[in-house]
């Protein structure tokens, strides 16, 4: 078949923070850049990020520096992070934030006119550059408005169906544009995957329809390795009531500004379980915790600002043991600060405007006056494409990954705020090295039969005689992952989950789509199933293999951390026969100077 074909040196798949930053950098590298967006430009999931960008600018607390940020990130990730990525991230994040300001971003200010930073879970000092609670919007808009003047071509509402290869190296992508349903081929010397996460594999999630693990799955099927897929972040505070808003994120910024978690007995249960590595840094009484949130440098942080994995599990425990709120969560209360400050209502509205708006409009709750009901929601995947720390290239030559779909920086658990900085730091790096790769390698050739095969598979759902509803299959998969590979896991349930995935894969092969190819969401849902099923299998396999509890991975049958598992990453790859192979791969040895940094910041 013949396809409309575009040629680029660097092709970026995904236009959230990482994709935009990569495209900007690749353009600056003097090569021809194409940017593919699954939705309209500026609507990617980055827009949902609320709290801020973690960077050791030291504007609010001058004790902060890259070493503290690095140590916090490694501790938060329970030391299975890629230490080199954590190091680069901590060192480069401040420059990436300042660069955004130079491109027009307008952050909240300190009293001396610099970029203001706020407290967040697991960060020792106030570190998150922010704009109220809509930092992601500020970031994506700044990158978008800067980027479109940098010469890149933007292709909106385009979905990649498969990656194309030239022998072992990447050669481009095949996909379809939604408006007319037409297939297109993009030939490119280097491809950067910046497709974000996979929250749609679960029923309760903060992710939009786009988060179906496309980059993870595309990379896997083209021979790239994935690591750490067992580590899923369940954000402790998602909305739980009314049902239609279940899963929508409530920013950690609420707790950063002094919000507290209480059970139905009115008890601040977070004080009841403070993990050993954090005991020295955590307040042991309410007054000290409050003083910390108000900038008292001698105070330690309140237990609500422990890492997300821990807070989510504590909430889960309260609910299971019958101390939850009426709709199966706990209470998040910011209104209580009226006891501590005048004008608290105005203060809350100014610091958390979009949370105020969200609860007022969607839940009839005025957060300046009453507590919110919250519970864990699937938010983020620490796992993803295994990449070289410096260049972000995968084991497939010419295939790069950045942002949430790449793995390494976060280890077993990501700290809030480290995602936006990850997007900037590693988006830039991926763009830079992809441009370099493209300059050093000729445009690849490829056999169009690859595209023909992908096209053939893609249109199968329109064939007569099929009956499976793709929405139903997606719904059943989400239910199985939620119940069987969720926040608390055990082996027999996860084995069941693998069986469900296998059965649903068989059914997905006969998914039926009605209507024509133009802007057909049913067709899109059918095509996304392959990605969702692939990543679900990877999550379950890795989670079964890691027989311990660490970070975002909690095993009821192995509730303790096991040192042996602290030395390995789980790696999955596709074998020649098409099955999924899993291997434990030892972590690289950390250089002594970084070990010392960690020691000094214990």
């Amino acid at each position: 078949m013949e396809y409309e074909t575009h040629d680029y040196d660097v092709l970026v798949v995904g236009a959230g923070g990482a994709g935009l930053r990569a495209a900007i950098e690749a353009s600056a590298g003097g090569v021809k850049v194409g940017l593919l967006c699954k939705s309209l430009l500026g609507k990617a999931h980055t827009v949902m990020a609320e709290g801020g960008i973690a960077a050791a600018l030291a504007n609010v607390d001058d004790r902060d520096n890259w070493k503290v940020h690095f140590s916090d990130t490694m501790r938060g990730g329970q030391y299975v992070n890629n230490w080199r990525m954590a190091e680069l991230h901590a060192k480069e994040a401040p420059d990436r934030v300042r660069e955004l300001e130079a491109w027009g971003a307008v952050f909240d200010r300190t009293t001396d006119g610099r970029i203001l930073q706020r407290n967040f879970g697991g960060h020792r000092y106030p570190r998150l550059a922010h704009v109220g609670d809509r930092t992601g919007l500020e970031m994506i808009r700044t990158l978008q408005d800067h980027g479109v003047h940098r010469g890149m071509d933007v292709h909106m509402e385009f979905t990649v169906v498969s990656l194309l290869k030239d022998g072992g190296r990447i050669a481009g992508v095949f996909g379809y544009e939604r408006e007319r349903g037409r297939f297109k081929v993009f030939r490119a010397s280097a491809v950067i995957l910046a497709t974000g996460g996979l929250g749609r594999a679960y029923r309760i999630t903060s992710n939009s329809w786009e988060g179906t693990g496309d980059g993870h799955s595309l990379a896997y099927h083209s021979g790239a390795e994935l690591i750490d897929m067992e580590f899923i972040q369940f954000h402790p505070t998602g909305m739980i009531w009314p049902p239609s808003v279940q899963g929508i994120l409530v920013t950690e910024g609420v707790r950063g500004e002094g919000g507290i978690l209480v059970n139905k007995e009115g008890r601040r249960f977070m004080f009841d379980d403070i993990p050993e590595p954090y005991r020295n840094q955590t307040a042991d009484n309410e007054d000290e915790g409050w003083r910390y949130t108000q900038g008292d440098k001698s105070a330690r942080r309140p237990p609500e600002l422990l890492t997300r994995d821990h807070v989510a599990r504590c909430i889960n425990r309260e609910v299971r043991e019958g101390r939850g709120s009426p709709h199966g969560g706990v209470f998040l209360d910011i209104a209580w600060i009226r006891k501590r400050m005048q004008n608290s209502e105005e203060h809350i509205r100014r610091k958390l405007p979009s949370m105020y708006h969200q609860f007022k409009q969607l839940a009839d709750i005025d957060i300046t006056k009453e507590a919110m009901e919250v519970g864990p929601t699937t938010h983020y995947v620490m796992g993803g494409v295994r990449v070289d720390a410096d260049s972000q290239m995968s084991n497939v030559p010419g295939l790069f990954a950045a942002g949430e779909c790449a793995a390494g920086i976060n280890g077993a658990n990501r700290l809030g705020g480290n995602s936006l900085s990850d997007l900037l730091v590693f988006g830039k790096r991926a763009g830079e090295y992809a441009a370099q790769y493209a300059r050093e390698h000729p445009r690849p050739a490829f056999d169009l039969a690859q595209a023909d095969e992908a096209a053939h598979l893609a249109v199968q759902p329109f064939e007569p005689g099929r009956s499976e509803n793709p929405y139903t299959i997606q719904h059943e998969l989400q239910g199985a992952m939620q119940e069987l590979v969720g926040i608390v896991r055990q082996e027999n349930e996860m084995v069941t989950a693998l069986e469900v995935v296998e059965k649903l894969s068989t059914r997905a092969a006969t998914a039926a789509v009605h209507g024509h190819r133009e802007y057909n969401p049913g067709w899109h849902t059918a095509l996304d199933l392959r990605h969702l099923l692939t990543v679900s299998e990877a999550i379950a396999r890795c989670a079964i293999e890691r027989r311990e509890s660490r970070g975002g991975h909690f095993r009821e049958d192995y509730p303790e951390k096991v040192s042996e598992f602290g030395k390995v990453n789980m790696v999955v790859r596709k074998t020649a026969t098409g099955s999924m192979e899993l291997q434990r791969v030892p972590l690289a040895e950390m250089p002594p100077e970084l070990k010392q940094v960690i020691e000094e910041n214990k």
Partner: protein
Amino acid sequence: MAQATFRVWRGASGGQFHDYTADVVPGMVVLDAIHQIQATQAGDLACRWNCKAGKCGSCSAEINGKPRLMCMTRLNDLPLDEPVTVEPMKAFPPIRDLVTDVSWNYTVKKKIKPFKARKPDAPDGTWRMSQSDVDRVQEFRKCIECFLCQDVCHVLREHALHPEFIGPRFLVYTAALEMHPLDDEDRLADLKGDHGIGYCNITGCCTKVCPEEITITENAIIPLKERVVDRFYDPVKRLFRVFSG
């Protein structure tokens, strides 16, 4: 379970309304109903959405004739004893069902001169701005680009002056740049000329539909109009320009 009827536009310009029944659960929004219809009755019903929390501005539509975000329109704010009509935005060419071609907006934005930072204030290459200096532009920067203001603007909607007028969204965008404490660019001539600020007769419809509650007319458009008037129509300044060349 309670049910409601949704009268949804199907097809493009030659399309028609189609009635669907959906189950109503507490707290439900119009977008939930559309999703339910997609999953159970009309798998190919086209709509845009992303965040489902009023933050991305994708699911713009006209609900009972009013431009709104589907994800922020609660069913308990609508009369459910009669069908809820859901139609695409009218100021843009239809693509299919609830999806319209909003590409014009992206073209317009690219025509506006981008941000140009003044020289840094500090030796380390950074700037100093006080919070009170940035409050004003932060209001404009809340915009989620849902284009509902463009949809309701009669200059675009009724008179279709798209080629000559950039619309309220891009007047807000221009205001955010012009009032940015660090910006060094000048966009007043463009505003008066190609961007057609004179077409706006400040009826304030855009402000009323803005889901982010940006005071578009008073805070963005009127100050820009004043700047244009000051520059180009102030008789003293005109005289001054004649003599100063």
